[in-house]
């Protein structure tokens, strides 16, 4: 059984077909890249999987369960976690409180009112911050972090719920080459605990960290499979890679 599966997913906006019967499969402990030219439907597919958009037709399955109609909170509880394309940390909260907010999401309202879990979650929060090199800035407002650090903070927040699948939408956008390299290093260890579906324009980054790849063009899947096979596919080269 696949961990995450998008089956024949289509998304139509008025007269525009953004996605046309797209299939995608992510296996356990797999890093899967999703690439394609601008407007190819990558982010739309990711949104349909995350619950930010609902497919016009088709199905999304997580660990065999149909989550096509589930709202984002239910998907999150089922094990999906998303990092948005546009950085969306909470700028007026401290770095620590951003992570705490993600960690405590499973608590009941009563437990939150009594602040019952703060001490229990402290260790997890500090480990996450340390892992993403943010522990020394934990008291600062998230707004003052650099763009790259905000991206890391958001990845840390997305990982806080210990998801089965982490969805990343262009995590290295706007980063320096050093930050991109560091991001790859920071992401590598999570393979032991979860799978990754990543939308990215930086093909070198994808090649460095991903095991498999799906290529979209004009809303359709052009190719999908292990990265070396897809890379050498003449169809992909014609349709996309040669133009990048």
């Amino acid at each position, binding site marked *: 059984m696949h961990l995450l599966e998008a089956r024949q997913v289509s998304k139509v906006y008025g007269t525009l077909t953004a996605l046309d019967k797209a299939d995608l499969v992510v296996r356990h402990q797999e890093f899967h890249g999703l690439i394609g030219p601008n407007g190819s439907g990558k982010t739309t597919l990711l949104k349909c999987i995350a619950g930010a958009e609902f497919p016009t037709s088709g199905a999304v399955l997580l660990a065999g369960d149909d989550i096509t109609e589930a709202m984002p909170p239910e998907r999150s509880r089922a094990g999906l976690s998303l990092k948005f394309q546009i950085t969306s940390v909470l700028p007026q909260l401290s770095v620590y409180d951003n992570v705490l*907010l993600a960690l405590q999401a499973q*608590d009941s309202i009563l*437990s939150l009112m009594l602040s019952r879990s703060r001490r229990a979650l402290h260790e997890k929060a500090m480990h996450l911050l340390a892992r993403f090199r943010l522990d*020394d800035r*934990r008291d600062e407002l998230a707004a003052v972090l650099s763009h790259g650090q905000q991206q890391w903070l958001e990845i840390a927040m997305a990982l806080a719920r210990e998801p089965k699948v982490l969805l990343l939408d262009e995590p290295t956008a706007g980063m320096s080459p050093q930050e991109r390299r560091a991001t790859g290093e920071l992401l590598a260890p999570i393979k032991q605990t979860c799978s990754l579906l990543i939308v990215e324009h930086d093909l070198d980054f994808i090649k460095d960290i991903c095991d498999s790849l799906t290529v979209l063009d004009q809303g359709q899947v052009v190719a999908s499979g292990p990265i070396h096979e897809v890379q050498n596919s003449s169809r992909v080269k014609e349709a996309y890679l040669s133009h990048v």
Partner: protein
Amino acid sequence: MHQAPPRREKRRIIPLIEVTLLAIALVLPILLDDFWVLFTTRVFILGMLALSFDLVWGYAGIMSFGQALFFGMAGYSAALLATKWDITSVFVLLPVAAIVGLVVAFVIAVIIILGKRPPNLVFVALGTLTSSYVVERLARGWSYVGGQNGIPSLPRLTAGSFELTEGPLFYYLALVLLALVYLGLRVLTRSQFGLVLAGIRQQEHRMAFFGYKIQNYKGFVFSLAGLVAGLSGGLYAFHEGYVGPGQLGPVLSTQVVLYALFGGAGTLVGPIVGTGLVDLFSYYLSQMWQTGWPIVLGLLLLIIVMFRPTGLIGFLVSDRERVGSFGRPSKVVPIRKASHEPA
């Protein structure tokens, strides 16, 4: 070793304002004549109503133009109990008023907040405004509740054989209740629950992807604010000895919005300061210029809201202090050292 949870932000200004205001409030009845004691009691009660608005808007980002609805319906309910059933006990009427506020707010929340998806700000603002307007119109036309005239000549509240007369006794009752409500809301907004509210206010869309069902949190806070508004409505009715349709409608709801924005929403203490100052300005301006004073007051409020969105409290309190941190202070919990953390 990891360090302790982030240090509590040293809030130097807000506690100072709180303690100063409380100290002044405790001695005021000794220094003021009867008129000003009544005036200040009214400020405390309306300040409690402003706190209810601050909870929904300043902390949870719900723009409610319906706080007067909960305030007025609670006042009417308590007044009806007092006039039709001769119940005057403060231990019955004020809890009933608070519960009526809670229930009415919950019903409104079920209709406009607790849907499949979180409602948008404009929908809630218009929904609460419309509810407030409709109920005010109904009250004006319903003879059972006194129609346009409302219910006058309410009996005094009693505690056992004591009558809670207007003046210092009612003043301290209002002060104690305001202080308790304030303390409760302060603890709530600084708890982990308060952190969720801060998240909803800043990035509502993002919060859903963490697993938070935003509607539930908004519905809860909205209902809780209804309880606070209901309590203040019950108090107000018996302080004034009267309840009328004006206490249900959009004019009072909007006035409460101005109290909070003028003083500084999202600080708790700001709306109370705002209530006192707006009512004080209103009084003095009306003495000086009987016909045109609302224009001057309106301009003053407009200037503050436009040029100081954080309200008057924003002049004294830094943004960082306003944000603060969340969860009760805890002792240092020694845990494993991070690999790259400086010793």
